[in-house]
Each structure stands twice: as structure tokens, then as C-alpha cells.
């Protein structure tokens, strides 16, 4: 049978299907059977799988880029330009890497929102479960994803990269007590330069990918130990009637999500070119200089929260760049212990019992999206421009 050369598993019975899961290196991460409800699109939207596929595609597209990229302040910009214009299909590899990175930030954020809205960090009373701990791992995965994206931001060494990192590092430095030490540890100097580029490069290609892979493995293992996706009234259901064999049903679903995700990245990478501004110039800040889109809402807050109380002035960088995000991160991490709604709400989309917290979450989400839109519409000298309003010509040099 020729097809058996590529895939050994074609079970003829339920027993064989179970044995095949245990015997197969790739498949043994799955359970032998899964609930039909967990496989549907609505409870999870499959966002976790989408995130994982994006991570793998980032590893795959990142490898050829590593061959051409040179992490040196003298050569980085030119090597990215070469990838864009000289290397065969280099533009597409860079675009796919960039699109997948942006998409991963979106997918992981939506995944976190989904888990919050369905209360999936909640344990069913019957069983020994630690879903709250998996929520904490998930929050760390979101943080690692954003850091991965941000460290990649500096690598092209163009104006966009240089000034985004310069301002962010000054935000880090504004943190009380440890801020300056963290900044100099990340930059390896007082200003963004060669050692900063090298440190961000090592974080981007080694430290953070390994951290994400390890955390991901832990995340998946915990889902298995906790008995799969959270769903309502876990203990009472008639298991037999509602489960399917992993082979072939789950394998096919995962394959569909994988192919759809990769197809979307492929097409978007062809349609959306990757920007590359002028080479980094520490003497000239572009006008306007903006943070990466996922930090625009924070940039709005940083730009609007400088507080003056008589002779005392609190830098907006401390309020919007340190205190607020750290408080938000701490509350998010501890949320499973703060949420006192009944266990029966686990796995239910937006149940009435959680109305207050859902409203607060919705208000925060609207605020963040609104501030992001305002940030997108900022033009030269931080003035506000509608998309149809042309920006005035600004001299780019003195």
C-alpha cells in the first residue's frame, strides 16, 4: 500500500484507533477520544491551534531570514534591504514572517479573551483540576508573544525600529527602583546601539522561542490533565454518546485549521508589502514616531497622563507605561482567584451570573480599541488627522 509509506495510521476499529494514538510520536499528544462539543467551532473558535500554527510558521519562515540577516548596526539595514530586493522571494519570506507575527499577537489575545468570556479558567467541582494555573501559563505565553514581536521590531534597524525601541526603553527606565537597571541590562549601554541590537537578536531567535515552545508544551499537557476543554456540567454528561475517535475526526479538524491559517498568511503576505523606512538615525526623530500597533493604546496613555501637582510632576511614562500595564497584568494573572461566580458557569459564553465583570471587560476592550484607533490617526506633531485628510509636508531634515 503506497499511502502507508507516509502515514502509518489507518485504523479499522475503535480499538485500533486508540492504539494508534498511543503508538504515534506526533499523535500521542492527543487523547484517544474527544468530546464532540470540544471539536465544534463555537466553544473555542480554535484560536489556540491557530496561535500554534502561526508560531510554527514563524519558526519556518524565520530560518531562511536568519541566513541573510546580519545583526550589526552597520549591516542590519542593508541586509534587510537585500532580503527585500535581492534575495529570491526574500520579500515574501519577510512578509510572511511579519504577517504571521502580527497575526499571532492578535490570535493569542483573542484566545485569552475567549477563555475569559467562557470562564474556561474555572474548575469543575468534581475533579482534580488546575485550570487557573493553565490561565497563568497562558498569560505568560501572551507576554512572551508580545516580547517576541517587539524584539523582532528592532532588527531591521530602520527609523521605525530605532525610535520605537528608544522610547520604550525610556518607559522601562521610568519604573521605580529597578527601571534603570533593567534598561541597561537590555541595552548593554546607555543608548540603543550595537549591544542592544545583539541582545534583542539573541532574545528574538533563541531565548523567547524556546520559552514559548516550553510554555506551550506545559499548556497543552495541563489541558490534557484537566480533562480537555472546559464545558458546562462536565460531570453529568453521558460521555459515550458524545465522544468521537481522535483518528480521523480530530486529525482532520486540526489539518483544516492548519491549512486555513497558513493559506491566510500566504495570501496576506503576497498582498501586503512589508514597510522599511530610512536607516536608523539617532539624530533625527521621524515625525510622527509611533509605537507598534499593539502598544498604540499605551502610547496614547503615556502621552496623556503626565500629572502635575504643584511642584511635583509625575512622568506619563510611569503612569501609562509602567503602573497601568503592570497593574493590568497582575489583575489579569490573578483573575481566576478573584472571580467568585459559580463553577457551573465554566465553558459557557458570557453567562448572566458574570454580568458585572463581563461589562467591565467590555468597557476595557472598547477603551483599548478606541485608544488604538486614536493612535492610528495621529499625524505629524501628534496632531489628529482623519484618514482622508492629507498630512502636511514636513521637512525630514534641518
Amino acid at each position, binding site marked *: 500500500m503506497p499511502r502507508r509509506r507516509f502515514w502509518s495510521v489507518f485504523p479499522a476499529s475503535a480499538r485500533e484507533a486508540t492504539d494508534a494514538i498511543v503508538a504515534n510520536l506526533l499523535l500521542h499528544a492527543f487523547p484517544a477520544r474527544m468530546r464532540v462539543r470540544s471539536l465544534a467551532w463555537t466553544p473555542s473558535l480554535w484560536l489556540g491551534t491557530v496561535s500554534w500554527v502561526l508560531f510554527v510558521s514563524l519558526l519556518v519562515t524565520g530560518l531562511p531570514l536568519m541566513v541573510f540577516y546580519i545583526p550589526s548596526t552597520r549591516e542590519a539595514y542593508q541586509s534587510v534591504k537585500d532580503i527585500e530586493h535581492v534575495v529570491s522571494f526574500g520579500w515574501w519570506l519577510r512578509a510572511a514572517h511579519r504577517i504571521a507575527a502580527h497575526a499571532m499577537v492578535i490570535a493569542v489575545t483573542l484566545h485569552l479573551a475567549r477563555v475569559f468570556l467562557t470562564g474556561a479558567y474555572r474548575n469543575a467541582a468534581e475533579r482534580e483540576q488546575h485550570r487557573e494555573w493553565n490561565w497563568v501559563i497562558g498569560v505568560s505565553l501572551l507576554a512572551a508573544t508580545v516580547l517576541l514581536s517587539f524584539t523582532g521590531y528592532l532588527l531591521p534597524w530602520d527609523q521605525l525600529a530605532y*525610535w520605537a525601541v528608544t522610547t520604550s526603553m525610556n518607559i522601562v527606565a521610568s519604573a521605580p527602583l529597578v527601571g534603570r537597571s533593567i534598561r541597561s541590562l537590555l541595552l548593554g549601554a546607555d543608548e540603543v546601539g550595537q*549591544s542592544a541590537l545583539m541582545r534583542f537578536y539573541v532574545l528574538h531567535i533563541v531565548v523567547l522561542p524556546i520559552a514559548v515552545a516550553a510554555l506551550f508544551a506545559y499548556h497543552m499537557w495541563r489541558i490534557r490533565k484537566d480533562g480537555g476543554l472546559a464545558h458546562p456540567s462536565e460531570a453529568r454528561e453521558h460521555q459515550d454518546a458524545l465522544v468521537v475517535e481522535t483518528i480521523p475526526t480530530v486529525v482532520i479538524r486540526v489539518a483544516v485549521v492548519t491549512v486555513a491559517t497558513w493559506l491566510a498568511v500566504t495570501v496576506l503576505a503576497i498582498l501586503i508589502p512589508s514597510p522599511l523606512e530610512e536607516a536608523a538615525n539617532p539624530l*533625527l526623530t521621524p515625525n510622527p514616531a509611533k509605537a507598534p500597533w499593539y502598544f498604540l493604546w499605551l502610547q496614547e496613555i503615556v502621552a496623556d497622563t503626565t500629572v502635575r501637582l504643584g511642584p511635583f510632576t509625575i512622568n506619563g511614562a510611569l503612569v501609562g507605561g509602567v503602573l497601568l500595564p503592570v497593574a493590568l497584568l497582575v489583575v489579569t494573572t490573578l483573575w481566576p482567584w478573584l472571580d467568585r461566580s459559580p463553577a457551573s458557569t465554566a465553558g459557557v459564553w458570557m453567562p448572566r451570573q458574570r454580568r458585572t465583570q463581563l461589562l467591565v471587560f467590555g468597557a476595557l476592550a472598547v477603551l483599548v480599541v478606541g485608544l488604538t484607533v486614536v493612535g492610528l490617526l495621529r499625524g505629524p506633531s501628534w496632531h489628529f488627522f482623519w484618514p482622508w485628510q492629507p498630512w502636511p509636508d514636513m521637512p525630514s531634515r534641518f
Partner: protein
Amino acid sequence: MKDSGFRIQDSGVRSRDSGPPAAGRQPQALSPEPLARRSVLAGLAAAAGLAGLGAQAWIVLRSLVPNVAYDPPTIVKVGRPESFADGLTFVPDRRVFIVRDGKTFRAVSAVCTHLGCTVRPEAFDEADPTDTAGRRQVQVYQFSCPCHGSRYRADGTPVSGPAPGPLAAYRLTLAPDDGQLVVDVGKEVARTSALTLP
């Protein structure tokens, strides 16, 4: 032979639990002491191992803190005083403006106090305050930051935007050897201080 070998091994095992019977001592007298010693040693070994790991973790972290800074020097010569025109001159290397007003020179930082972007000067005409008729115009300037829209007056005082403090003023001296202006961007001075040439 086979039997005796068995017996030796057997008694060896038993001796750990209850002591050799040949010594004639009571088993209870022996049992707590070696166990306590063993657990203390195990604890010490674990502590030593942890301390070693901690020290190595510190070594790795310490290696990442640079011992030599390759940042450019803070004290630079920027040119002879007469080479500066009245008004503003930007010195790109050190991100500083030299402000000349006749014989008076000042050095104003171009680094925004909010998040460290480079501010730009904006010049515009304004009615001369000394001209009561209001017909004469003078050129005044201010600094604006492209990052978050902070604005400063010419002397560095923040006017609007998120900037928490004024633009820094740096010490300005004359080089004794060739008479060039020397700015030290590592030394902040009061904003009123200026270098006045005779």
C-alpha cells in the same frame, strides 16, 4: 561458598537497619543517630548544590552587565564661537542646540524629557514686545517633540504636552588650547547659566 556469600550480603543488609548482632548492642540505641546524620548531610549537600547553582546563575547575569561602556565621550568641542550664527545651531553628534545671543552662549539639550526623542526647533514671527506700535516683528522659536507633541519655549520650559520637565542645559566652556566651545553633556547646569564672552 555460595552459601557464605549469601550470608555476608544478608547480614550486611541487616546491619544497616538494626546494627550487627555480634556487637551485642540494643537495636533501638543505634537507629536514630545514623538517620539524623544522613538527613543532615543530605540537607547540606542539597544546600551546597543550590548555592552553587545560585552562584552560577549570578555569574551568567553578571556577565551580561557591561564592564566597559563604548558610548561616545560626553565632552566635545563643537567649534569656535564666531562660527555660530545668532539664534540656534544644532550639534548632531551630541543632540544639543547651541543658542547664541550676541556674546552670550548657552547649550540646550535636544532630548525630550518625556521619552527621549529629538526635539525640532520651530521658528515663527511674533510682534516685538519692545515695539509699542506693534509694527515690528521678531523671530522667535520654540521646540516641539515629534513623538508625543510636547512643546518647549526657547529657554527649555515645557509649555504643553506630556513632557514632565524642562530641556536640560549643559555646561559650556572655552577650550584653553584652541578657543573652541566645549560642551559637556554629562554636566547639567542651571538654565540661567550662560557663557558670556568678553
